[in-house]
């Protein structure tokens, strides 16, 4: 007579223990974030929410509003594009300054102290630029230059300048250094060595990363609008504050479409470049 097969998880004790330990550890987080989702379903907050959501259908489609949305959408793209162009003005020189492959003194042994120090300082500067979120830059610039796209463009230029500069530097250093070294050792200038040695082998990767960041910049230029830096985000913020559900619905749809389109274009460009 065979024994009945016991179908029990041999490790159930440990699983139950770790699961409950996790729940206990979770508790402080729940307290710290005042995580009480049921307040969302109290009558006081449910009524405006439902009214707001009900207004989503149908999305606002009167011609004047659509024209406004079209203009703001273009401005969102324009802020991102102008920001990235300015970011390149920071990133390209900084990447050239910080790339260790372009060092003449390191051709023979260790890099001399001053060039090494300059490269490290540029690197730190880029990291600093990059680690301040663009939203914080925008908050600061809105104070200085006032509401409008200028603050958004500058914020994107600084944060993305840091990001692009850092990654450009990394890309330039990751490639095969032999050609560049050879050019430098035979007396070509650093710019010449860059243009004929480094750039050809890294051009595709550099461009594809830039296009990817342009796509990210479009997303963040919408977000920047929320602190008053113009574009779709600012309009979205206004409409949300006025509980205009239909307008919010239209703009969300436009925004999702814009992001999807940028995603497609960037994917296509990167494939064409590869």
């Amino acid at each position, binding site marked *: 007579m065979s024994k009945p097969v016991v179908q029990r998880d041999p490790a159930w004790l440990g699983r139950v223990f770790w699961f409950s330990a996790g729940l206990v550890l979770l508790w402080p987080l729940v307290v710290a974030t*005042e995580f009480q989702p049921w307040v969302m379903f109290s009558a006081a907050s449910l009524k405006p929410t439902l009214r707001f959501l009900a207004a989503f259908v149908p999305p606002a489609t009167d011609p004047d509003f659509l024209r406004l949305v079209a203009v703001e959408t273009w*401005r969102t*793209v324009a802020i991102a594009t102008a920001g990235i162009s300015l970011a390149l003005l920071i990133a390209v020189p900084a990447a050239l300054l910080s790339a260790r492959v372009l060092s003449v003194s390191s051709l023979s042994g260790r890099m001399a102290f001053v060039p090494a120090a300059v490269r490290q300082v540029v690197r730190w500067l880029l990291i600093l630029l990059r680690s301040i979120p663009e939203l914080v830059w925008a908050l600061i610039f809105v104070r*200085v230059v006032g509401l409008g796209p200028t603050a958004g463009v500058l914020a994107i230029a600084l944060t993305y300048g840091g990001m692009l500069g850092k990654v450009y530097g990394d890309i330039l250093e990751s490639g095969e250094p032999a050609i560049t070294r050879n050019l430098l050792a035979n007396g070509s200038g650093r710019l010449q060595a860059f243009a004929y040695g480094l750039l050809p082998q890294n051009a595709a990767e550099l461009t594809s990363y830039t296009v990817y960041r342009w796509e990210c910049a479009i997303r963040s230029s919408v*977000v920047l609008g*929320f602190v008053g830096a113009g574009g779709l985000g600012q309009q979205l913020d206004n409409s949300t504050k006025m509980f205009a559900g239909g307008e919010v619905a239209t703009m969300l749809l436009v925004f*999702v479409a814009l992001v999807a389109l940028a995603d497609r274009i960037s994917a296509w460009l990167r494939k*064409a470049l590869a």
Partner: protein
Amino acid sequence: MSPQPQQLPPALFNARCKACWLTAGLAVLVVASFWSLDLQWARFLSPEAAASMGRFVGEFFPPDLSTPFVRKVAEATLETLAMSALGTLIAAAVGLLLALPASAGLARLPTRLLLNALRAVPELVWASLLLISAGLGPLAGTLALALHTSGVLGRLFAEALENAPTGPAEALRTQGVGPLRVFLYATLPQVLPQVISYTLYRWENNIRAAAILGVVGAGGLGQLLAFHMGLFQMDKTATVLAAMLLMVAGVDALSYTVRRALTR
């Protein structure tokens, strides 16, 4: 015999050259952007702007380092970290739940559409929409992070599930084991390492996002920042900014060290 001419470089523009058209289009896009934006360089580069910028930065110093305020900032930092951790955890759970229908079967396309919609709207936009129902405070921020991140993680998890080898699941299924147990004992253990590493990666991102989410009123350091900046209390703003930078730098350094230790 006349000397052979040197090979000339190709013409600068050629109607069949794709890259030329791309570059031209790009140039048009950039010029149009600058032209249409009425940027106020004059105001930004004028001496008054430089002076006001200088004054603005000058007011940052000295930062407010009095004990009660530092304690408040520390609490806000903890709140930010808690928001990001809880938001990511909820997102991982929801993402896993949504990844199941998104990886196979009839519901694949609609679920993917839902995941893409969740992902396409940034955290900050979710937060500002959620403020209406969740009110000011960290709850809105946590839920906003959870919504956006579950879109991102759901998609990644679905791909992990689709790419998991089917052998173990088949073996259990032919033994007559039910679908829930097949998932728990065959599929889940295979994708768990990926699930954990994606979740940790998103957590790192979410700490950064949570720091600024508060700018629209959704709790954490951002809310403190927006509040004190709105009141022109620049010394307090400087402290909050410093805390934000320290937190982000700390997370970066930690993740770098952990990554290096893991890959070695």
